[in-house]
């Protein structure tokens, strides 16, 4: 069975975002790029499924430029078998990403695909569902528990106030949320082995964009407020302010 895990690279979550000179995207100066944190759950889940079935192949797919190779290597070091880089140096909107991924998933004939529930840069959380619709696959977004029995899938997904139990079947795309598993660390052996694994490069499928960013800006800064006191004696004043000034209680 072919399993696909999709990974993207994103600015480290510790990044202080600055607007680039084009006024439309982040200033990349000094930004460290990492594997999208939610994609680590995707790679881990694919590896777990392969181990459980006892056979199969985990293919890591990433869309972007040469920088993404390092991210693919990270997934290979965790234990994935091979990588595919869908090349496009230009940033794409969610639909453009979905189009490229769908095309490659079809090429691979993969029936089960994992990806992070969202990338922590654009936070859209829609690529999985779009990819699934393009392929006519099922899709469980924001998955926190995944079980497969033959073709049948029982998954749990996080929603407001709890979790939904979902019954579906292959072919399926799972978008992974924190809590699904504990991503493994790459071992030294894994890191060495990853260097020998192949990363195939091919042009990403073309698409017509649906969205265009016209401006990026930083949110209005918050002014630091008042320190009311340094012990419990400040509590009545705090409560008074919340009630009378802020009017939130």
């Amino acid at each position, binding site marked *: 069975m072919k399993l696909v895990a999709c990974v993207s690279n994103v600015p480290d979550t510790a990044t202080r975002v600055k607007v680039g000179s084009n006024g439309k995207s982040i200033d990349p100066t000094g930004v460290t790029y990492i594997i999208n944190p939610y994609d680590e759950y995707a790679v881990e889940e694919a590896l777990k499924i392969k181990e459980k079935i006892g056979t199969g192949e985990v293919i890591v797919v990433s869309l972007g430029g040469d920088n993404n190779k390092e991210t693919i290597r990270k997934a290979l070091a965790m234990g994935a078998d091979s990588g595919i880089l869908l090349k496009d140096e230009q940033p794409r909107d969610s639909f453009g990403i*979905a189009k490229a991924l769908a095309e490659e998933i079809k090429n691979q004939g993969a029936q089960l695909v994992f990806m992070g529930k969202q990338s922590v840069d654009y936070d859209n959380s829609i690529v999985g569902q779009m990819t699934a619709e393009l392929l006519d696959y099922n899709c469980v977004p924001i998955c926190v528990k995944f079980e497969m029995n033959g073709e049948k899938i029982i998954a749990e997904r996080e929603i407001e106030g709890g979790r939904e139990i979902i019954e579906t*079947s292959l072919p399926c795309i799972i978008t992974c949320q*924190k809590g699904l598993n504990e991503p493994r660390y790459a071992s030294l052996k894994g890191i060495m082995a990853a260097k020998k694994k192949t990363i195939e490069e091919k042009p990403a499928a073309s698409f017509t964009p649906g*969205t265009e960013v016209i401006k990026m800006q930083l949110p209005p800064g918050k002014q630091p407020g008042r320190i009311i006191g340094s012990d*419990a004696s400040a509590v009545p004043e705090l409560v008074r302010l919340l009630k009378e000034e802020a009017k939130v209680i």
Partner: protein
Amino acid sequence: MSNKILVILEQREGKLKRSGFEAASTALGLAKDLNSSVEAVVVGDSISNINEISKYGIQKVTHLKNSDLANYSSSGYTDSIVNFTKNDFDIIILSNTALGKDLAPRLSVRLNAACIVDCIKLNVSGNEMTFTRPIYAGKALVDVKLLSDKKVITLRPNVFKAQIVEGTFPAEIVVKEIADVNLKSRVTSFIKSEGKLDVAEADIIVSGGRGMKGPENFHLVEELAESLGAAVGASRAVVDAGWRPHNEQVGQTGKTVSPSLYVACGISGAIQHLAGMSSSKYIVAINKDKDAPIFNVADYGITGDLFEILPALTAEINKLKQS
């Protein structure tokens, strides 16, 4: 292009959700700007309070009905709505709830419509529309243009106002029975979280961080939350340490929240956490380190021992509620 707008309402357990009313009010505002009209649609089995939509000024709502659609089914709901809309609507508006977030991209692909999610502002000038949404968990904002005539838009819950319109007539309710429901993918049951309220939906959040010193002390946070009718949140550090469940995590790899009041207890304020909560209307920080970055975004701060302050605060709130 007529710019005809369709609002997708959401029901859970047979009741319309408030977030749908926010979408309805926003749609009506947009229709006014664009000189177009609005209809609503809702998918489900029986819906007890469907008439309530009238109060918000919607004049026609179509109920796509089948007992198999009582619970959410991505395939069943998508197919039903796609078959219903055909080419009759140009703009589809939903709330960015778990359901809206799941449905919007599917509708976008199926209807060849451009999609923008989690909007916090719609900007209309003439016939031109742009949409403002946060990125990097709120560290930045982008204005986005949609490049196709057809558009699917989701709105961040609790940002847009649900406005009751005076003197409206009862809405026309059209019930359409759906014959064959596509149940390729369906929800079979729902497990409620242990916490009473979800941080994503709460109007007040009390969050605890490493300063709580251990999971055994979180009852102090829970008690304060209880007194305020608030949800319990947590920093990434305490979730990663296993003190609290991950669905309580606020921040860049957790939930982005904007309640009217956010009380941060023993949270120093890592940049990832600040990104997820600094759009809260009012922020209270309780931390003994006066240099903690959380005080840079807090409206009110107490620099002191939270083991002394939290019980006092809970008692004071309870006293206020009783008076």
